[in-house]
């Protein structure tokens, strides 16, 4: 089993990256290279959702790739949200406290509710100004 990757823009500033298979010391490079090409297309302040539904396995090499995505998005005022990690991936995240729990979502509904809240905060912030 190798790594599978694809992505779609659900809006111009919101991209969903589906990561499936195994993300390890053999395959993390594929993700890094794909993100190097993709992330510059996401505008400042945009959002990357990494959908982990199909990811069966991650090792520390893969954790470092996720950290690079989050670092790169953060540098441009953007967000990285992780969706639906499977048991092995959750376990590894828990052990190394890889990501803030507030940025990991177990379902699309939960993620959408969060994005709506974020949207409202921005809108309300705008009307205050």
């Amino acid at each position, binding site marked *: 089993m190798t790594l599978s990757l694809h992505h779609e823009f659900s809006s111009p500033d919101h991209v969903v990256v589906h990561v499936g298979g195994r993300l*390890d*010391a*053999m395959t993390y490079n594929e993700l890094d290279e794909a993100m190097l090409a993709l992330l510059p297309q996401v505008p400042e302040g945009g959002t990357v959702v990494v959908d982990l539904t199909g990811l*069966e*396995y991650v*090792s*520390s*090499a893969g*954790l*470092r790739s*996720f*950290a*690079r995505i*989050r*670092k790169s998005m*953060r540098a441009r005022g953007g967000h990285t949200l992780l969706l639906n990690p499977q*048991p*092995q991936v959750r376990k*590894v995240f828990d*052990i*190394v*406290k*890889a*990501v*803030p729990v507030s940025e990991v979502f177990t379902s699309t509904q939960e993620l959408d509710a969060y994005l709506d809240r974020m949207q409202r905060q921005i809108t309300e912030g705008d009307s205050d100004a």
Partner: protein
Amino acid sequence: MLASAGHEPPILCGRGGPQLLDFPTGAVLGLYEDSDYPEHRLRLGRGETLLMYTDGITEASDHEQRMYGIERTVESLAGVPPAASSDGYIERLLGDVDRFVAEAAQADDITVLALTWHGTTVSGSELRIASQLADVFGALDRCDNLLQEAGVPAALRSDMRLVLEELMVNTVEYGYPDGRAGQIRILLQPQPDVVVVELIDDGLAFDPLHPPEPDLTGDLADREQVGGLGIHLARTIASEMRYTRNAHDNHLLLRFAYPDGSAS
């Protein structure tokens, strides 16, 4: 591998009753220039003990000049509970000989050597690979197949894959800074409630139990250098990890206990 220079037969204990290993011996050391010493091979199983002794035991005599003899020696050892430690065999035998001899004078030197194998029987599989990333991943797949055939549950196999990946990738990346070709050996021993793995490499000495815990702030993206995570994962997930540095090898003994309730 055993060879004997005219000694009493060693006794194998812990495999049923005590067994005399009556293989041919050579002449007493130092008598002839061209003595021949036939070799005898024996593989100790876990908990088995090989007992060797000088004839001070069998020729120990009481007041009436009766010798202790090999039958009494075997009988004495038969009274030791199975899976006893080497101490248990030695204490029992010396105690019985002392009681038999009572007040009579000691006739000859008495030396007893007991070797107990505390590890596992090497009934599992051994893989040898070059210290290259591609070989490591080939080995991980083979291990996974072997463990699946042995009926190891998927969640445990996945844990084992992670630990073995982290440790072997670390060896490949840091074990051979001079670029020489290294070798990694993996011994897999699936047992009913645990899988024992030995990981042996000939790289730089490295004890994965030694590095301090990484500083986990709750966000890897906060950190400049993300090192030590793999070793931390390996240490956390393996049920037990023991390190020894042999002459030129790092030797890691890993145990992976079956999750509760899933033992086959």
